[in-house]
């Protein structure tokens, strides 16, 4: 069994998770501070990929990145490389598909964060960067970690947009999900089934991990109990 599709899926998911980790955090953090009207609009735009069919995302991406389209043609002209049908083309697709997962979980975690902690930090002279990384992030660790793992899992399984933007080229752009489709299409049922099992195993493990993160709360030693706060 050629393991290339798994390795390819892992590197695509890894890179796009790294990107959305920071992009999602930044979006959640800064959008919370914008006026309500703008917030509502941005929220809809950034959540859209969650509800759109991946094929629609793939279509829109091709309209921008395709070698005959404006941006794709310009890129090909300047850098001599096309933006579609390479293994990293799939990163564009998965990044957009999984972005809302990270953005929304991070936003939920930030909204649940006790702002008085940040205010206290500011008034004792701590920089906003320090407060973000040393106080806010540890406080939201659980939600953000769960969101990251979930986004990674979704990236591993991405099919629709990926297949349109990166296609299926064995040994080049093949991922686990596109391989399953291809094997089924070519009647290689036995091999398709093995990849299905691989997929199931990965998904199962990831969901188990998310559950454990949410249950353990990551950090129980340092939480002020709610009862003490409201007393």
């Amino acid at each position, binding site marked *: 069994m050629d393991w290339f599709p798994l390795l390819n899926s892992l590197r695509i998911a890894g890179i796009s998770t790294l990107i959305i980790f920071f992009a999602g955090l930044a979006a959640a953090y800064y959008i919370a501070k914008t006026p309500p009207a703008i917030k509502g609009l941005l929220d809809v735009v950034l959540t859209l990929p969650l509800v759109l069919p991946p094929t629609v995302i793939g279509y829109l991406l091709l309209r921008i990145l395709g070698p005959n389209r404006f941006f794709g043609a310009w890129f090909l002209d300047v850098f001599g490389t096309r933006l579609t049908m390479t293994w990293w083309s799939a990163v564009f697709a998965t990044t957009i598909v999984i972005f809302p997962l990270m953005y929304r979980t991070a936003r939920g975690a930030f909204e649940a964060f*006790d702002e*008085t*902690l940040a*205010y*206290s*930090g*500011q*008034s*004792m*002279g*701590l*920089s906003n960067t*320090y407060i973000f990384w*040393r*106080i806010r992030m*540890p*406080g939201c660790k659980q939600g953000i970690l769960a969101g990251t793992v979930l986004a990674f899992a979704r990236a591993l399984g991405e099919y629709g947009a990926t297949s349109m933007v990166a296609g299926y080229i064995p040994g080049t752009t093949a991922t686990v999900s596109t391989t399953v489709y291809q094997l089924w299409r070519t009647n290689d049922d036995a091999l398709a089934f093995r990849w299905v099992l691989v997929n199931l195993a990965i998904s199962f493990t990831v969901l188990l991990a998310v559950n454990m993160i949410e249950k353990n709360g990551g*950090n129980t*030693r*340092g*939480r*002020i*109990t709610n009862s*003490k*706060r409201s*007393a």
Partner: protein
Amino acid sequence: MSLFVDIEKKLGSFYLKAEMTAEDETLALLGASGCGKSMTLKCIAGIEKPDRGRIVVDGVTLFDSERGIHLSPQEHRAGLIFQNYALFPNMTVLENIRAGARREKDPAIREKSISGIIDSFGLAGLTGHYPSMLSGGQQQRVALARILVSQPRILLLDEPFSALDSHLRFRMEEELRQVIRQFGRTVILVSHNRKEIFRLSDRIAIMNNGRIEAIGARSIVFDDPKTRTGAILTGCKNISRIRKKDDFSIEALDWGIELTVTKKVTDESFAGIRTHEIKSAGCENKFRCRVVKEVENPFSCTVLLCPEGKEPPELIGWEMDKSTWNRIRSDYIEISLPPGSIMLLKG
């Protein structure tokens, strides 16, 4: 002048307009919840931005809408303590205090002030503990230590005892009094507990619906609250609408009686008398009353009275020792409202 505040801020239908000055003293903001006390503190701390006005602390202009000055909360250097103490839950006591000391760049001075503050607050045995492992009193001590080590210009305390059990409050109040004395600069204390405020502050500002209605020395504010809200907030339970009869007499509409007063009546529309100021004997403002209800308190009795032959909308409350009540207890009793104890109040 240590503190000058003159700010306006609109929040939906709520309009805050606060003006006050304070020297190196403790100024208390007394008001019901939602009156704008905490918002005023947040503005002084730089967390909320007023729409208009000016905030100056120790000669440093922190906010001035006309000159476009709006310093960051970090530059405001206000020692703000929230009612939940807002200790960083992921850090130990020592790390919390260390975080407060980060402003000091010289490591030698920093370490010295950290160990100094740990000693003076008796936290040496707790440095490795997380906030969730501390009692309410210990949390407050850590919060005070952490904020003082950050060298604030001014101390802002938002309901400092509301998270504590009542038996702890009294002890922590004594500790806070010492902290305030040692700090020696302006302290703004926000609370809705009039007793705490009376014991801890030099001056009191009465806040109602986003405005400061009265500001003055604590004894003056308690003796003569001047407004109905002030009387209620300082604990006056007997308040009646009045109609002026002449310069020194009024008709208390809610009690159905006429009263003489020692202060000249001007445009006041309410009068009040504290439940413990009513006397059983006296020559002026004497009334025979029917006892409508007796309420037993832990160490005193309150009786609700209705002047004989009247059907007033409000009853008069009189609080006295249990022994006094046992002596005079009867269905009808005579009371006197001393003219000097009657407070004339504006609406």
